[in-house]
């Protein structure tokens, strides 16, 4: 594809996703967007695209997730590069066979005869009292499903570059975006990010905190407050979950010897569990203390604001876990 100009000025996260898609659409006529109300762009990532590319390339679909994700699998195999907005990523459960058993298996089952360059974008996380079916972070389900790439940007910069990488990838990629970060501002710089990358910020020496999406923001905030206490926290924003940036993750713990893994998904078989398990297996010698996981307990997300807050890890929870890891 043609050289990329990253939008120079400060951006918000959801528009950065849309910018990346529109650049790809300009560069490559095979890129086509569909989903429910993608022309209005209810969820953000497709907003404004219809104005530039029209209804032929920005297609509003019926509420038929299994079929339009399945059609996207077929269209991708057939030479298009569909970007499907599934709205809330938990709606993907309705199309789960098409993602797990089809998009994630076809290349392998055919012995590599074909590729499935498909992007499925969906929101993940609690926007504030959207309750159990519109708030969860299913990243672990997509990872465990197999055959899918998964990214979860937490900043406009990550959003722009990872969406570009997703659309340019020849593999099926699930792009998650946090609804409460849709308006988060940040500058998109020309340093590209790709599948398999992580962002380390701040760099620290006492304890490593691994997080994505909203949890990455809370981890950075916790790091700032702990700095005042003289605790140096390294925050690794694992914005690419598949491929998982193990090199960065392991290097960080080799340095700090302490790990806190934060996840807005449910704990059991979560991304937090995966990172903790990988560390317990591959960095055991470096670990000076037990690995601490912070995640949503194994409950759905409740509606009431105080209950929702109670089940999702907060800045203080992260600070407490990091402090315990260091001070024991």
């Amino acid at each position, binding site marked *: 594809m043609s050289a990329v100009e990253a939008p120079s000025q400060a951006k918000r996260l959801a528009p950065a996703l849309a910018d990346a898609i529109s650049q790809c659409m300009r560069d490559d006529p095979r890129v086509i967007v569909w989903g429910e109300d993608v022309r209005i762009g209810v969820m953000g990532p497709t907003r404004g695209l219809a104005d530039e590319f029209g209804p032929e390339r920005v297609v509003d679909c019926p509420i038929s997730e299994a079929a339009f994700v399945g059609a996207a699998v077929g269209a991708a195999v057939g030479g298009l590069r569909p970007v499907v907005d599934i709205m809330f990523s938990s709606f993907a459960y309705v199309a789960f066979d098409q993602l797990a058993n089809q998009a994630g298996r076809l290349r392998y089952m055919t012995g590599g005869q074909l590729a499935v360059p498909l992007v499925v974008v969906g929101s993940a996380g609690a926007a504030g009292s959207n309750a159990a079916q519109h708030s969860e972070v299913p990243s672990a389900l997509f990872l465990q499903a197999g055959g899918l790439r998964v990214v979860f940007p937490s900043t406009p910069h990550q959003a722009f570059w990872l969406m570009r990488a997703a659309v340019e990838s020849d593999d099926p990629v699930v792009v998650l975006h946090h609804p409460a970060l849709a308006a988060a501002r940040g500058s998109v710089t020309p340093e590209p990010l790709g599948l398999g990358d992580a962002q380390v910020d701040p760099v620290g020496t006492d304890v490593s905190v691994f997080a994505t999406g909203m949890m990455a923001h809370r981890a950075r905030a916790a790091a700032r407050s702990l700095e005042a206490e003289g605790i140096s926290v390294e925050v690794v924003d694992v914005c690419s979950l598949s491929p998982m940036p193990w090199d960065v993750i392991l290097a960080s713990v080799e340095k700090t010897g302490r790990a806190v893994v934060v996840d807005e998904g449910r704990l059991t078989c979560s991304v937090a569990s995966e990172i903790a398990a990988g560390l317990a297996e591959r960095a055991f010698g470096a670990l000076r203390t037990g690995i601490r996981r912070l995640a949503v307990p194994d409950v759905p997300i*409740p509606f009431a604001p*105080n209950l929702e807050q109670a089940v999702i890890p907060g800045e203080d929870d992260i600070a407490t876990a990091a402090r315990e890891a260091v001070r024991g």
Partner: protein
Amino acid sequence: MSRESVLRERGADWLRTMVRIRRFEEKLAELHRSGELVGVVHLSIGQEATAVGICSSLRPGDQITSTHRGHHHMLARGLEPRRMYAEILGRAGGYCGGKGGSMHVSSFSEGAVGANGIVGGGIAHAVGLALAAQKLGKGSVAVAFFGDGAANQGVLFESLNLAALWQVPVLFVCENNGYTEFTPTDAVTAGGSIFARAAIFGLPAEAVDGDDVIAVHRAADEALARARNGGGPAFIECRTNRWRGHHEGEESYARPYREPPRPPDPLDRLEQAMAGAGLDAAQLRSTIELEERALVAESLAAARAEPEPETSRAFEDVFA
């Protein structure tokens, strides 16, 4: 029974419930504007006659499954405004203890089994509820409410087939308000009318004027009587109108925002029909308006006064 006598017998109740739904939801619109109401809220204003017409044919023990846009179903089924407000405001005294909110209001004991945030998610549940009622000899029926947009979900077709095979007492009610969120449903729905999609499974299926409570009630009465007598499932498409947007607050992003068309008000249509039947409808309407506005106001005040749920409740009710 003649239109007149039906109106004389039930018109007042219908009008009261329809007014209650309207005033109940108008308050929610205010609460959302003021920011007191959090989360996404989908209002049913304009669709009152459908919910009231169907639910007024139900008996105690009958069960309904509902949708993200379900307040009118719940009020028509007889749920209390106070406990509904409490739920929608996330208070401890809400029907679900504040854990469900607007999209999941339900009262199991009153036969409102659950509102669903997944479009089409509750349709098959109604088939199962009807099977349970049949196998357990309850003599009750189940009603699945869903929208025109949900008519494109595969699980609807599968559920129709299953209900037809099992001949269970379930009524499928498609509330056709013309919209799938912001998309006119016609634009994403191939072929003829939605009710025709049910007919191919051999179900009695028809479309009715969903803003005419009498027409809806008649169709429901007939279908439910048949179902109670072992006549199996049926399908009613209620053609109604969504007066407000898809959800409150959508103007913030849904540009160009258009006010949806305002067809004749189903409440006024009922009032006029009652007047035509020789009832003092105007007088009745104003009394009902006074009483229901008062009820709604008191209910909201009472709900607001409720505490938020105990934090510990967040960790309960996953498993029995």
